[in-house]
């Protein structure tokens, strides 16, 4: 399978990465080089093989549904590019 320029633009949008129109051809070439490389996986007979879900056999632990810590507003927003009154500030989302 190979990706065309429309697909490159669509993937970039899905990945939320702005891609300059001038960069589309080269990115497409690079993605196709990787997709060609992984094509050899089609040779393998995977009939009846379970996809791996955990590399070490383990049961996912559940923790108690309890408050472990809190009240750290200053630490939580301390690295925010913009914040106000203990909130993260983003451009208007709802019209």
């Amino acid at each position, binding site marked *: 399978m190979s990706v065309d320029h429309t697909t490159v633009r669509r993937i970039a949008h899905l990945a939320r*990465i*702005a891609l300059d129109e001038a960069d589309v051809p080269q990115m497409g070439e690079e*993605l196709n080089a*990787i997709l060609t*490389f992984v094509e050899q996986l089609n040779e393998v007979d995977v009939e009846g093989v379970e996809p791996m879900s955990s590399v070490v056999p*383990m049961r996912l632990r559940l923790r108690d549904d309890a408050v472990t810590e809190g009240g750290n507003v200053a*630490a939580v927003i301390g690295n925010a590019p913009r914040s106000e009154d203990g909130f993260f500030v983003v451009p208007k*989302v709802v019209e």
Partner: protein
Amino acid sequence: MTDLTTFTLAEARDALRARTISATELTQAHVEAVAKARALNAFLLETPERALADAARSDDRLARGEAGPLEGIPLGIKDLFCTAGVRTTAGSRILGEFTPPYESTVTAQLWRDGAVMLGKLNNDEFAMGSSNETSAFGPVVSPWRRAHPSVDARPPHAGSDEVGRVAFAAYDDTKLVPGGSSGGSAAAVAARLCLGATATDTGGSIRQPAAFTGTVGIKPTYGRCSRWGTVAFASSLDQAGPIARTVRDCAILLGSMSGFDPKDSTSVDRAVPDFEAAVSRGVKGLRIGIPKEYRLPGTPDEIAALWDQGAAWLREAGAEIVEVSLPHTRYALPAYYIVAPAEASSNLARYDGVRYGIRVPGRDVASQYEATRAEGFGREVKRRIMIGTYVLSAGYYDAYYVRAQRIRTLIKRDFEEAYAAGIDAILTPATPSSAFAIGEKASADPVEMYLNDVFTVTVNMAGLPGIAVPAGLDSRGLPLGLQLIGRPFDEETLFAAGAAIEAAAGRTVLPDAWW
């Protein structure tokens, strides 16, 4: 007075406990070495005040006889580990001046045990790379240089005391990569800027740079070290581990870095063995597997010869060498380049310019995300996020991602069958070549760089422990390493067998400071 930066970690620990040196003088010597080595670009952030304050505390504890296992030992920390109050970048521009309000579990355990922090080490952006050239802060320069082609750099005979002791008349001044993604860690340890360093390994990022720099690096079993507070790349593959100058030093560091952590849901609740004790266990009676599928066409003769030499050393030390078959080996790298980018595309979705890092304004929230990520991520990271997004997208998920995870099951099964047949560990080359020059692989085809990890990536796909140990120099005087792959949670056998190779090969003589 002896140069305090030439100690191994174990020697420094013993000298500190015997009070023949102080933590402050040991740290001061390393702080000075770091400041003199800026041309290597190994450190992204130096923390000399913190280091000297840590050392003063260590001297107090040493005086009171309350020394921890790493008391007063100066370490470098890969900039993928969050350090409370100390800027953490993951080698990326997108995190800006991010200063974590918390400490990663692995580093917290090092400080608990008395270690001293010298600073944060350069790495490939989000650990995506095999040469440290994808770092937003520029490449790391290896302390190693090629001998001039007119000089015969080959050691007189491997296994003698002379290995690595050849004085080269002339060096080529081409700057070489230290490998990656833990390139800063490997370069700093090889250049004697620190006694050991933390590193992480998703496809070979500890073992490949260790092999390129004549240092020792171990990736433990998945689940041995907590991933909490380490910047995530591919969560089902990522593991922390140490790089140091000897097998023993790695064993000491891994002992402190390991252990159950309820904050990481994939951390394994299992006692941490005495890794250092395993170093002197010997290899008598061990069955070491040689996987025939690792004899790749195009592997340089020197690598094949080194591998045979490694097997011979282990046999002479009392191990039995057995040929094994791992039939799905060749599919590990392509399957990795589906699984790892898929997980990365999901993990790196968090960098959106809202909660931390840089923000590039847009006309609405979606265009702000797109502009921020376009500006903040480098080319390799963007490419991997896009591949990951593609293989997870509707209509392709089964053909790519699910198929790759099925193949991963087969790769793991190959190892399980070898171990079930009585194999204790598997010996392979660590890398398909010695270190290459900065810029040498800057071709348009990213797959060429990916091939660096062909011998190491299987280990991550199967969640197994793997160690890289220096085993000799190539004809240009550059280090080559061998890899040992162990059973799950049997790092001890890797330390025992790694020490046998180290003893037979002779300690690598590291380059004198030219930087």
